[in-house]
Every structure is written in C-alpha cells, then in structure tokens.
C-alpha cells in the first residue's frame, strides 16, 4: 500500500527513536509497517478472533510464536532451500509449528481452543507469516529475522488488542471479561457479531489514514 509515503512522513520521528539498526528492525513492525493497519495482511484471523480482548491476545501470541520459530528456521536454512521449492518448504515449516501450537493450546485450555476453533490451524494460511518468510527471513541473518518476527508479532498483537478491546467493550460491556459499564448499559450486540468486525476494522484503518494524512501535510 502506501508504505513508501509513511516512511517519508515518519522519518524525522523514527530517526530519533531508533538509534541503532536493531531497534529499528524491531520497531518497524509496531506502527510504521504494522501488519494489520498498514500492510493490511492477515485479515481473516484479525477479524474472526477479535470479538473479545482475550481471544485477540491469545491469537496474537500464537501467531507471534509461529512467526518467530518459522523465521528462525527459514533464516538459518536460507542457503540450503532451493529457490524453486522455497514456498512449499516454507509452508511445511510453518505447518509444523502451527500443529505444535494447536496441540499446545488444546493442552493448556480447552475453553480457549474452542473459542479460537479452526483459526489456530488457519495460522498456516495467514499471509503475514508467509509474507515475512518470503520478504525477510529468506534474505536476512537469523538475528535480524528474530527481531523482525518479534516486531511484526507485537504489531499484530497491538492491532488485535485495539480491535478486541473496543469490540468487547461495546458488545459485551467488559474488558478481558471484567465488566466496566453499569448494568444499565445496553450492549451493542452487533459489535461481537461479524458485521461489527468489519466496521471496527474500517474505523481503525480510517484513523490510521487520517493520521498519515496529517503527517504528510
């Protein structure tokens, strides 16, 4: 999308904050190249599991774990994997870690595993992970790939929490399951249903667009 323009607009601010290249490698995932709000990747899981803050957090952590492990493995194998079969190899690596995560979550909490449903398994096809493997881990050292994965993962968690808290707050009157509003509050049930996900994401993207435009002027 408009990553180029954001880069230019934020240059002054980020130069001051990111004194070393390593910090920058991590920080870029948080806002400047945020996977959800700026790159608009991984929409399916973003929308589907952000109906409560807790689900969003769990999904974010699971995705970060898969992203980190597959980035490490792909970066260390980058000179071994033949170019022609790289996508297939990446998919295999990612699928292996996702299977591990799926079983781990089932072991930790059956309730959570039920709430997230097939979406844990669907991390395999989260374009964000394959995208990072192809665009970053296959060309960079292990250390840089770790930083990149952590940054992107954190950015994803931030995005999921942004969506999840607002949707839970309006749709259920609570945050992380703790009631915030008095009983007289009429819940906006629509917010935890599918249309609410679309509307909320649209509103967040709009906020980001507005911020971008303000900086560009």
């Amino acid at each position, binding site marked *: 999308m408009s990553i180029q323009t954001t880069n230019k607009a934020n240059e002054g601010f980020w130069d001051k904050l990111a004194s070393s290249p390593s910090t920058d490698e991590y920080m870029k995932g948080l806002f400047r190249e945020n996977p959800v709000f700026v790159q608009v990747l991984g929409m399916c899981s973003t929308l589907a599991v952000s109906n409560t803050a807790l689900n969003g957090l769990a999904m974010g952590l699971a995705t970060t774990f898969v992203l980190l492990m597959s980035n490490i493995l792909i970066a260390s194998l980058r000179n071994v994997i033949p170019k022609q079969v790289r*996508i297939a190899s990446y998919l295999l690596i990612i699928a292996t870690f996702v299977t591990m995560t799926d079983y781990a979550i089932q072991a930790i909490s059956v309730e959570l595993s039920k709430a997230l449903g097939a979406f844990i398994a669907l991390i395999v096809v989260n374009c964000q992970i394959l995208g990072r493997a192809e665009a970053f881990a296959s060309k960079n050292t292990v250390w840089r790939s770790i930083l990149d994965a952590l940054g992107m993962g954190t950015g994803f968690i931030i995005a999921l929490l942004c969506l999840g808290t607002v949707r839970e707050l309006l749709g259920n009157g609570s945050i992380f399951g703790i009631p915030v509003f008095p009983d007289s509050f009429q819940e906006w049930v629509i917010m935890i249903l599918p249309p609410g996900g*679309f509307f909320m994401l649209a509103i967040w*993207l709009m906020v980001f667009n507005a911020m971008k435009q303000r900086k560009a002027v």
Partner: protein
Amino acid sequence: MNQESLWSIFINAVLINNFVLAYFLGICPFLGVSGKMETATKMGGAVTFVLVISSLCAYGLHSLLAAIGAPYLELISYIVVIAATVQLVEMFIKKVSPVLFNALGIFLPLITTNCVILALALFQTNKGYNFVQCLVYALASGAGFTLALVLMAGIREHLDLAEPPNIVKGTVLTLMIAGILALSFMGFAGLGSN
C-alpha cells in the same frame, strides 16, 4: 457420521454461514480482486474448482491418516495437497487463457494461502461428512464465496462514480460495504437449523 441433509448443507454454506461474510475467510482476495465484475466471477470459478478438488483429496487423506493412526500429520498433508492443486490450476489457466492469467495476477498463486480452502478441509473433517456431503459442501462454499465476491464487485463498480472523502478511499470503504453486506446476510440466519 453426520446425517445432515444435502440441501441443508448447501443453504448453510451459501447463505447462513457464508465463508466470507460470516466466518471471515478469504478476506484477502475478497478485498483484492473485487474491483471488477469480470475478474470477480472468474476468481470465484477458480476458487470453486480448487475447493472441490482439494476437498475430495482431503477426504481421502483423512481416511488414510485415520487408518495409519497419524492425525497430527493432517494439517501438513492438507496444505501440501492444496499447494499442489493450486499449482496445477495455475498452469492450466496459463495455458488456456493467458488473459485471465494476467487479470488474476498475484491472487492466483495466493489461492494457496486462501483460508477458505484449508478451512473447508478442516471443517468437513470436524463435521465428519461423508463423500457426497463433502462434495456438496465444497460446491456450496465455492458458490458462497463467488456470491460474496460478485455482490461486492457490483457495488464497487458503481462506487467508481462516487466521490468519497480521501480517508475512506480504498480498503476502508470496501470494509464498510463488507460490514453492511454481512449485516444483511445475518437476515438469513432463520432459514435453517444451524
């Protein structure tokens, strides 16, 4: 074994639990290729084709893995089969219609990472559908995906003439329309038993 009738599976997958608008699956191509009606229908066709083939493969794989007692290989083998199927479809389309191949562009290989395909394989396994039920489910999901894509493309073609403010141009506007579509699809909820 699941005893759901074929008609109920069909209505469920097309309207009530539409993969795009109720399950949020396949959002990437939904946002990406819904700009023009023509590409949208063809993309829907390609996805439906891959869905049917991979669904049947997944059915066979599931029986095989259950027979040798290795269910943990399910996800990995599904994704390999899907990747292979997509590769086949890609070569087929390139040969038969280079124009369509160019129009679909990057979204053709990305069918591999289209959640609809993998989700269908997983859902049908979870629900324990038999062979015919799988086939109907795959066709219906494909139809549902195409329906959502075509509806969106129709609306977006008309929107080309409108002048929205700068901050809602592009993805934001598409998402808002998707929200409204999802809202109207919720009206189908009473049609069948969930």
